[in-house]
C-alpha cells in the first residue's frame, strides 16, 4: 500500500506539471472528447497537447502492456490514476472504440504482428476505429449476417452492407463480421476482419435519427479487397471474437452510463436531474414541490448509486483476483434502462419547456436535454437489445433451459 501511495503522489505531481490548464473541466463525451484519428478535431488546441503527453507516457491506455504503447499499470494503479485525474477535473486524453473495443480484442486474439501494427496507433490516437456488426436484416439475430467474403488468393473480397456503424464517417478503420462460409452453420461461417476504410469500394452514408442527429452510418462494401493477414483469430471463427468484443462493448456502455463514476464516490448533492427539477418546479424550500416526481427522482438517484456500487463491486472483485462474476452480465441492460429513465424524468421535470425542437422561445440547454432524451431511446436497442440481454442472463447465469 505504501507503494501505491508513492504512486499516487508521483502521479498527482506529474499530472499537475503536464496537464495544460485549459483542459480542466472538459467532458470526455461525444462532443468534447478526443476521439483521435486522421480527421481528429479538438475542443481546444491544448487537448491535442494533452493527448500527446499522455500517449508518450502510455497513459491513454494505462493498463495495456508497455510494448504496445500502454502504461503497464496494475488494476490498482490504474484506479489511482483515474482518481487523481478526476480530482484535477482532467478529461480522458483519448476515447473511442480503439481503446474500449478492438484494442482489448486484439490483446486477446490478435497475432503478434497485428498487435504491433495496430495497438500503438490506437494508443497515440492516430487511427480511429468503428464497428461493422449489424446489417439491415441482422439485428438482434446478429449471426444471420450476410456480408460476404470470398477468398481470392491472399485476399478476401468483401461485398455487403453494415448498418449502425457509429461514426463511420469519421473513422479510418473498421472491424467487421463477414460471412466467409455460407455452407456452415450460421455461427460457424463468420470471420472477423480488419478493414482500412480508404480501400476502394468502401462508402459511408450517415443515418438521420429521431433526435435530428447522425451518430450512425450505413457502410457499404463493394468488392473490397482485404488481405488475409487482417483476419483476427481464425477464418470462420469470428463468432468467438465477436462475443468477446460484445462483452467489451457492453462494459463500455455500462461505464459510460454511470458505472465508471465509481461507487465509492458520493452521489452528488445536486445531479443534473435534481438541478433541472429545481429550476423548472421551484426550490420548494429545499424540497422538490411535486411529491410524486420527487419520489421518482429519488428512486432514480438511488438506482444510480446502487448501480455504481455494483460496478465498483465487480472492479474490487477483479482487483482481489476473482474471476469476473455474473454481476457483470447485468451492466448493459441496467445501465441503459437507468440512463433512459433519467432522460425521461428530465423531460418530465421540464414540462412544456421540454417540448422544443429548435428556434425561439426555447432555452438552448433545454433543447439539448430533449434531443438527448430522443437519442437515449436507442440505448436499450444498440449493443444488444435489453430483451437479448435478459435472455443471456436467464441462460448463462441462471441456467434456464432453451
Amino acid at each position, binding site marked *: 500500500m505504501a507503494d501505491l501511495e508513492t504512486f499516487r503522489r508521483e502521479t498527482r505531481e506529474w499530472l499537475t506539471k503536464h496537464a495544460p490548464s485549459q483542459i480542466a473541466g472538459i467532458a470526455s463525451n461525444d462532443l468534447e472528447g478526443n476521439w483521435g484519428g486522421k480527421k481528429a478535431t479538438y475542443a481546444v488546441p491544448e487537448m491535442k497537447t494533452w493527448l500527446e503527453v499522455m500517449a508518450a507516457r502510455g497513459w491513454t491506455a494505462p493498463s495495456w502492456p508497455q510494448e504496445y504503447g500502454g502504461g503497464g499499470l496494475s488494476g490498482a494503479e490504474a484506479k489511482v490514476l483515474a482518481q487523481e485525474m478526476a480530482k484535477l477535473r482532467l478529461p480522458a486524453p483519448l476515447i473511442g472504440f480503439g481503446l474500449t473495443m478492438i484494442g482489448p480484442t486484439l490483446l486477446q486474439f490478435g497475432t503478434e504482428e497485428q498487435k504491433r501494427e495496430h495497438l500503438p496507433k490506437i494508443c497515440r490516437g492516430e487511427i480511429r476505429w468503428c464497428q461493422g456488426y449489424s446489417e439491415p436484416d441482422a439485428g438482434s439475430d446478429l449471426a444471420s449476417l450476410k456480408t460476404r467474403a470470398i477468398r481470392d488468393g491472399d485476399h478476401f473480397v468483401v461485398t455487403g452492407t453494415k448498418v449502425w456503424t457509429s461514426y463511420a464517417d469519421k473513422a479510418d478503420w473498421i472491424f467487421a463480421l463477414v460471412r466467409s462460409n455460407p455452407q456452415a452453420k450460421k455461427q460457424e461461417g463468420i470471420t472477423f476482419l480488419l478493414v482500412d476504410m480508404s480501400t476502394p469500394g468502401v462508402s459511408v452514408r450517415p443515418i438521420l435519427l429521431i433526435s435530428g442527429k447522425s451518430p450512425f452510418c450505413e457502410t457499404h462494401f463493394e468488392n473490397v479487397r482485404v488481405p488475409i493477414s487482417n483476419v483476427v483469430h481464425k477464418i470462420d471463427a469470428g463468432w468467438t471474437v465477436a462475443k468477446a468484443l460484445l462483452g467489451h462493448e457492453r462494459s463500455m456502455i455500462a461505464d459510460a452510463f454511470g458505472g465508471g463514476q465509481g*461507487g*465509492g464516490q*458520493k*452521489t452528488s*448533492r*445536486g445531479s443534473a436531474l*435534481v438541478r433541472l*427539477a*429545481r429550476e423548472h418546479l421551484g426550490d420548494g424550500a*429545499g*424540497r*422538490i414541490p411535486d411529491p410524486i416526481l*420527487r*419520489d421518482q*427522482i*429519488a*428512486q432514480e*438517484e*438511488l*438506482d444510480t*448509486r*446502487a*448501480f455504481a*456500487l*455494483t460496478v*465498483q*463491486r465487480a472492479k*474490487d*472483485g477483479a*482487483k*482481489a483476483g*476473482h474471476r469476473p462474476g*455474473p*454481476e457483470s452480465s*447485468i451492466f448493459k*441492460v*441496467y445501465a441503459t434502462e437507468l440512463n433512459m429513465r433519467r432522460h425521461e424524468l428530465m423531460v418530465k421535470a421540464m414540462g412544456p419547456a421540454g417540448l422544443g425542437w429548435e428556434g425561439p422561445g426555447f432555452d438552448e440547454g433545454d433543447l439539448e436535454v430533449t434531443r438527448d432524451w430522443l437519442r437515449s431511446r436507442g440505448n436499450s436497442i444498440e449493443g444488444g437489445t435489453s*430483451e437479448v*440481454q*435478459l*435472455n443471456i*442472463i*436467464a*441462460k448463462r*447465469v*441462471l*441456467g*434456464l*433451459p*432453451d
Partner: protein
Amino acid sequence: MDLVLTEDQDLLSKTAADFVAEHSPVSRFRKLRDTRDATGFSRELWKEMAGLGWVGIPFPEEFGGAGLGFAELAVVLEQLGRKLAPEPFLSTVLLGGQALLLGGSDAQKKEWLPRLVSGDAILSVAYQEAKSRYDLRHVTTKAEKAGDGWTLTGEKIQVLDAHVADALVVAARTAGGETDAEGITLFLVRKGAPGLSVERQSRVDSRNAGLVRLAGVRVGPVDVVGEVGRGGALLERVVDRASAGLCAEMLGSMQQAAEDTFAYLKTRVQFGVPIGSFQALKHRAAKMYIELELARSCVMAAVRAVDANDEDLERLVSLAKARCSDAGVLIANEAVQMHGGVGMTDEYDVGFYMKRARVAEMTFGDATWHRDRFARLSGY
C-alpha cells in the same frame, strides 16, 4: 471501502452456511410455528451461536466480543436469513446491544454486554407506537419526573422478542411535543419491573413480537441510556445500524427465495417443457437476479459504512433499506407467482419468504420512507 469479502469473511460465510444447513433448515422454523413454541426460537441454538462467537461479533473484546464489525456480522445474518432462522439477532445484537454499546454507561455495558455476548441475556428496543408508523421521533410514551427519577406511561407495539427480553430499552418523552426531535430519552427497563406488562403478538411472519405496556414504571438516573432529552439522535443511530443488519438478513432470504424459484422453473413441466423455457418467465427471472445483485452491492456498502463510521452512512443505509424492501417484496411475490398453485399452499416454504419479506419491508421504514429520507439528506 472495497466491496469484496476478505478471506476471513468468506470463510465465516461458508462456516455459517454449513451450520445453518445442518442445524436450521426451514423445517425447524416451521415446527416452532406449528407448535406455537413458548420461546419462539431455540435457546440451545442461540447459546451455540454465541459459542461460535457470532452473537459477540460486533462487540469489543473487553465484553467478551470478537471486536469485529458489521461486515462480518452481515455474512452471518445473510446465511441465517436464507433459512429464516428466528434467533434474536435483530432485537438483541442489533437493537438492544447497539443501544447500550453506543449510549450505555460503563456500568450498563459491564452488566449487560458480557451476558448478551454469551447468549444469556436477551435485549430489545421498544420504540414503535400505534401512531408512529416509521417516524422515530413520534414518541408519546411519557416519562414524568418523580423524585430523582421518572415514571413511564405508554404503550409500545410490535416490540421484537419482547416476551423473552431480560431488559428493554424504552423510548419515552421527557420534554417537547409529540413529534419533536429533542426531548426523547432512552431508559433501560428490566423484565418484571412493577407496572410493566408484555403481551405476545402474532404477526404474519410468525416471528416474536409483543405489546409492551408501561403503567407508571419507575426508573432512576442509572437507567438512562445516553443523555436525557437526546435519545432521539441515539435511537436514529441505533436503528441505522439495525437496518443495515436487517438488510443483510433480507438479502439472504431473497437470495434463497430466488434460487428456489429458479430451480423450480427448471423442473416444473407444463405443455411438455420446463416452464423456465418460456421467455415471459425468463425475463422476469433475469430481473429478479438483477435486483438481487444491486441489493447485494448496497448491503455491502451499508455495513462497511457502519464499520468505517462513514459520513454518508445515513444515505447508504436508506439506499440499502429502500432497495432491499422493494427487491425483497418483488422477489417474494414473483416466487409465489412462479410456483403457481403450490406457492399458495402452507405446505410450501415459499409463502414463509413472502410473509417475512413483507414484515422486513415495514420494519425500520419501507422503500418510500427511505427514498424520502435519502432525498431530504441530499437536500431536495
